[in-house]
């Protein structure tokens, strides 16, 4: 027996919302999904009128749906936003080159400008070359650190007022768990923030913060949006994988638990007197950093000096090795 749409529109329901358990027909689901994103945007005052906003586009489902929904809402509710697409090309053959094709398709479909920045032009290294150097372990560290900064630089180049990313509710819940497991107290506090700003960096926000991954896929599926869905070919991060599997189990037991984890995360507050990393400016590149030299610069230094694993170790070990290398050089010079 067909189940009726719970919005009482008379049509038979085609799906059951993972978030609330309500059964909806296609049209009512589109309506609800879009209205929810609109609600998130308005309630959190994510955008002011006539701003230029960059959508961080990877070609995956989240950013594709984000670009589509933002375009729809921008027109429907006259946000007056100037939307552009910003993509980062990490230089991973067989993964990023294919997904960039999807982004180029998005550019045509949504009539937005597109800027592609590559690791190669920014840092002189592609991820392929980095993996050649350091192997498949730890390469996600390089990619993640570089991408963070690449987005900032791209946003500055495009002179936008804000960058939106496609992080969904599952991503946020997973990050809450990861930060507890890693003991990263500073990130634990800010990972549930919907807008993150640095001192003079361009603010970033996450309009899909409360959207379930499953509903994003449903939306893309019924809207027949093309997106690129392949895992990165360079080893998925093992430890994060555990958190991800756990989250899937929790979702199976109680579908609302994703929202519950975010609720927990939003309520965390750090005890007074707990030492947090200070935020300063990197002496080499001038971007926000928690160390005198930012992680991106120190990773790059390691790569360029042929000691790529150096910058992955502890600060104290790094300093010791640097000192020892200096002594070695002095001794060699003295011998000459």
């Amino acid at each position, binding site marked *: 027996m067909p189940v009726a749409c719970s919005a009482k529109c008379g049509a038979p329901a085609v799906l059951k919302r993972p978030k609330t358990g309500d059964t909806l027909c296609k049209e009512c689901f589109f309506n609800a999904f879009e209205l929810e994103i609109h609600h998130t945007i308005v309630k959190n005052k994510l955008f002011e009128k006539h701003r230029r906003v960059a959508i961080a586009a990877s070609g995956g489902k989240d950013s594709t749906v984000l670009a589509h929904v933002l375009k729809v809402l921008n027109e429907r509710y006259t946000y007056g936003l100037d939307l552009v697409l910003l993509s980062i090309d990490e230089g991973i053959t067989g993964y990023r080159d294919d997904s960039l094709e999807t982004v180029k398709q998005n550019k045509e479909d949504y009539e937005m400008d597109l800027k592609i920045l590559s690791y190669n032009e920014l840092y002189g290294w592609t991820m392929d070359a980095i993996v050649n150097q350091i192997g498949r372990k730890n390469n996600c560290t390089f990619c993640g650190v570089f991408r963070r900064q690449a987005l900032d630089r791209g946003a500055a180049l495009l002179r936008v007022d804000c960058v939106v990313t496609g992080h969904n509710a599952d991503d946020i819940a997973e990050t809450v768990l990861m930060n507890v497991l890693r003991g990263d107290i500073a990130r634990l506090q800010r990972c549930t923030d919907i807008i993150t700003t640095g001192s003079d960096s361009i603010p970033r926000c996450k309009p899909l913060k409360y959207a379930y991954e499953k509903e994003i896929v449903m939306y893309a599926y019924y809207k027949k949006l093309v997106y690129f869905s392949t895992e990165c070919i360079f080893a998925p991060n093992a430890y994060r994988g555990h958190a991800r599997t756990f989250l899937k189990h929790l979702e199976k037991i*109680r579908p609302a*638990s994703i929202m519950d984890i975010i609720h927990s995360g939003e309520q965390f*507050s750090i005890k007074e007197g707990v030492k947090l990393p200070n935020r300063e400016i990197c002496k080499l590149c001038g971007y926000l950093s928690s160390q005198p030299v930012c992680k991106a610069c120190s990773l790059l230094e390691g790569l360029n000096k042929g000691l790529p694993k150096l910058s992955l170790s502890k600060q104290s070990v790094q300093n010791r090795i640097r000192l020892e290398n200096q002594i070695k050089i002095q001794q060699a010079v003295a011998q000459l």
Partner: protein
Amino acid sequence: MCSNGSGGCGTTEDLMPEEVKLDLKEDKLCPRCNTNAGEVVLRSKDIYCKTCLLHYLNHKFRAALGKSKLMRPQDKALIAFSGSHSSMALLHLIHEGMQLSSHKRILFSVCAVYIDDGSVAKLSISERRKVNSGVQAAMSNFEHYFICIEQSLGPNNATLYSNAEELPLDKYSEDGELNKLFETVTTLSSRQYLLQTLRQNLLNQAAKKLNCTKIFTAETQTDLATKIIANIALGKGAHIPMDVGFSDDRTDDLITLRPLRDFSSKEVIYYNLFNDLAAIHVPSLATLADPLGSLQKAAESFVSDLQTNFPSTVSTVFRTADKLSLDLSTLDPAKSCALCKAPLDTRSDLASSSMGATKFSRLVSNATREELNAVQVTSSDDVTSQETVGLQSGLCYACQYVIKDMKSSQEGVGEEILRKTLEEESLSVMENQIKDFIL
């Protein structure tokens, strides 16, 4: 050439600190006393002999109590005893401390209380009698009492039984009101949650009746790390500082302490082994359940699996949670949850919240198109700030699930039982406040 202990360096890889691997085949002396052979390895690198381990654990226990400066000689503490390894160890540690002749002797007085919740786990009366007589033997060194979980629903001055034989198990058996309440709750997650909360409330009741000012629970670091992960999943993150901290003062004049919170479960097991203490197996609600049967069970297997492969998991989770405090900007300290007594975390006037987003989702999934068109979303909208109604409005975010998870056909039954209990509780709190002035 440089030498860094491991001998010579070539590439940086050689300079990376090597993991210390213990060769346990050799007979190693305990480095602390240098006389006895080592018997236990903790943190996968530290060797202890029996004497040094017991000394170390005793010291850790005393230090935890001493550092807090919360215990006064005239205090009386209620020990929540469950028969588990850790509660066996806790009783023994306190007993040892009271026997000392030196100035280090524990001066405060204690009593042990055991809650019989066998009916919830569907145990037969004879099984429960067997468990209880074992429990009585374990608690025999102390003033001790038995109490049935059913009494958490009854009037607020629950009778305490000093002898296990006296427990009227026939009266508190499977077809009682408590089981009616549990049967209306459909998910194991919520049943476990409800049981745990009722137990805590009953302990508070017993403590007041016995004029205790402190409650000791035997939760170890491992238990608490699991609880942290489970509570995050249950939406109870706001109360983590209370739920896992050393002291929990959510109820007036009564502080719950967790003196074993620096013990790992391994340390507890060795403590019991060296002292010939055997835990009493008490089957509980979730003992035989599927590892993925509830959020709490899933968290338990997640933490223990991760701990096997990454031995720092438990301590990292635990230390992270230790850096959290109650968020006074979002919590409402004046209003506490009727069930778990923690400050309410359900303020709906905050800018962005996952709670508001869920409410909005519910609203738009059930509204007709005309209604939707009429919805005006503004930054200060009140679509989502409608208050929840009924019993739920007095409960915190996580406790609301107990009601949400009730069978819709019997929702009234369960809610009514719970409402009656909570009302009686708040009445007795009021009575307590004015008791000195009532003639």
